[in-house]
C-alpha cells in the first residue's frame, strides 16, 4: 500500500463512455484480482480520489488495466490523460477475490455494466488453475458492451442487454435461466439491484460479491463507505477495507 506516480501506457475508449486505461509502475507487483486503486484526478479542484477496480494485471510487463465509465467531472478529467502521462495512484487497496478453486470446479462470473472489470483478472486466474469459467455479462445497450471477446477466451460467455440490441434481451438472470447455468459457485459485481436479485433467486449459491460505494480515504479511516452486515446487530462493514469483495451472506447487498 503506497502512493506512486504510475504512467499511462495506453488509454482508449472501448465502449460508450467507457475507457480502458493501462498503467505501468512498481505497485503492480502487489496487486491481486478484486482489489482496487484510488486514483488522483488530474485537477487541483477535485480532492477525492476515484476508486477504480483492477481489471487485469500483467506481472511480466508491470502493468495493470483499469476500466472506468465517464460519469462525472472527475472521470471526464481522467479521460483526457494521454500516453506517457503520470497518474498518482494509491493502492492496491481492499481485499480481493479468494483464488482457491471453487468446490464445484466451475465458476460462474456475473457482471453488470461497469461492475464487469474486476471479474476479468479473476476469471483469468481461475481458468489458469483449471477451473471451468462461464461468464454472464449484462449491459444497458449494445454500445455499452465491452470485453465480450476477452471473456470468451476464458470460456462460454452470455451477454444480455436491457433493450435487446445485443445478445439476450433482459437481465443477467434471464441468461442464467435460459441456459440453465450452474449457480453453485458465483462471483459477481454490478449494480446493487442486480446482485440483490441474483442472491434472492439462488439462496444456496456460494461465492462472492464485489461492492461499489462513494469513498473518502479508501483505507477504512473515514467511515464514508459503510454497508450493513446481514447478521443483526453486527453493525457496518467498510466497503474499502473489509471489502470490496465480500462472501455471499456477509453483507446486505
Amino acid at each position: 500500500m503506497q502512493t506512486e506516480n504510475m504512467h499511462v501506457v495506453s488509454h482508449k475508449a472501448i465502449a460508450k463512455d467507457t475507457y480502458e486505461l493501462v498503467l505501468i509502475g512498481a505497485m503492480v507487483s502487489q496487486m491481486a484480482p478484486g482489489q482496487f486503486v484510488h486514483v488522483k484526478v488530474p485537477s487541483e479542484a477535485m480532492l477525492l480520489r476515484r476508486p477504480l477496480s483492477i481489471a487485469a494485471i500483467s506481472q511480466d510487463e508491470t502493468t495493470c488495466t483499469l476500466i472506468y465509465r465517464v460519469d462525472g467531472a472527475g472521470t471526464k478529467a481522467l479521460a483526457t490523460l494521454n500516453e506517457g502521462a503520470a497518474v498518482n495512484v494509491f493502492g492496491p487497496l481492499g481485499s480481493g477475490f479468494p483464488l482457491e478453486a471453487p468446490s464445484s470446479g466451475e465458476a460462474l462470473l456475473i457482471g453488470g455494466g461497469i461492475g464487469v472489470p474486476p471479474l476479468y483478472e479473476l476469471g483469468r486466474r481461475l481458468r489458469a488453475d483449471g477451473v471451468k469459467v462461464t461468464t454472464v455479462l449484462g449491459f444497458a445497450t449494445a454500445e455499452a458492451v465491452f470485453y465480450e471477446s476477452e471473456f470468451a477466451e476464458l470460456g462460454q460467455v452470455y451477454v444480455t442487454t436491457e433493450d435487446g440490441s445485443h445478445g439476450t434481451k433482459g437481465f443477467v438472470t434471464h441468461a442464467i435461466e435460459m441456459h440453465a447455468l450452474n449457480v453453485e459457485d458465483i462471483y459477481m459485481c454490478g449494480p446493487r439491484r442486480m446482485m440483490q436479485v441474483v442472491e434472492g433467486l439462488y439462496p444456496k449459491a456460494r461465492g462472492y460479491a464485489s461492492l461499489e460505494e462513494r469513498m473518502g480515504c479508501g483505507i477504512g479511516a473515514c467511515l464514508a463507505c459503510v454497508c450493513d452486515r446481514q447478521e443483526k446487530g453486527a453493525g457496518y462493514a467498510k466497503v474499502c477495507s473489509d471489502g470490496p469483495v465480500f462472501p455471499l451472506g456477509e453483507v446486505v447487498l
Partner: protein
Amino acid sequence: MSRLHVELPGLSMKNPIMPASGCFGYGREYARLYDLSCLGAVAVKGTTEAQKDGNPTPRVAETSSGMLNAIGLQNPGVEAVAAEELPWLAAYDTPILVNISGSTMEEYETVARTLSNRSETSAIELNISCPNVKKGGMAFGQDPALAEELTARVKAVSRQPVYVKLSPNVADPAALALAVERGGADGLSLINTLVGMRLDWKTGAPILANGAGGMSGPAVKPVAIRITHNVRQVTNLPIIGMGGISSPEDVIEFIRAGADTVAVGTANFSDPFVCPTLIEQLPAYLDELGASHIHDLQGKGAALL
C-alpha cells in the same frame, strides 16, 4: 529545542502537525502507511457514550476544492475506545487529543470523565460543532450561554485540559470563543465544517443521504483563516487552527493568523502521506522566512500586542 516544537496545555508536540478528528479514525489505518510517532499529536474520531451507527450512505460528496461529509459520528462508544483504541494508539510517541461528543450535557460529562481518566489521554477536544447529528452536537455551539455552561461542566469532571472545537456556522465566532473561555476552556479548535448541501441536478435529490453535510477542504480555508484571525484578536487561549490545510504555506498562514498549531483533515484523503510530508517540508519554509522557530511567525492579535 526543535524549531517546530510546540508546547500547549496537555500537548507537548514535536511539530505543529496533527491529523484532524474524524479524518484519521483512531490511527490504525494510517499506522500501516507510516510511523505515527512522527506526528505532533493525533486527534482521534469523535466518541460518544454509546456505540453509534452514524448516517446512511452516501456519506460523502465532492465539491469544488472541497467535500461534504455526513458520517454522523459513527463510533464504537466510550468503553470500546477506552479499552481498545486508546491503549493501542498510546504505543506511539505522540500526544492523543481525544474528541468527545454527546447529545446531552450529561452524556458529554460521562464521556469526558471516562476518557480524561485514561492515562493515554493527553487532552480533550470538546466537539460542540458537529453539523451531522440530529440532537446535541452543533446546538451547544450556537448559543454562547449553553456553550459556556457545557464547557464548565466538562471542565469540572475532566482531569485533562479541554480544547473546545467551535463551529463556523454562527454569526459571531469570537463571542463563542469568549463564552467557552469564561467556561474555563484551556484552548480552542477552529474550525469545524461549514454546513452545506449538494443536489443531483437531474432529479433534485440531495447527494448525501442525510441531506446536508459538513463542508471541508481548501474551499473553506479563507473562512477558517478569518475566524482564527478574528478570535485571536479577543483571546490569548491556545488555538488549534484547521480548515483546508494541505501545504506548508497553508500551515504558516494559520500560524500567521494566530493559531499555535494546526490540524490537517480532508487533505489526508487526497494524499494519505500529507502529514509526514508537511513535517518534512516545514523547516525549509522557516529558512526562507528567516524564522528560527515556527512561533516567530505567529500572529499575536492586534488587540493583545
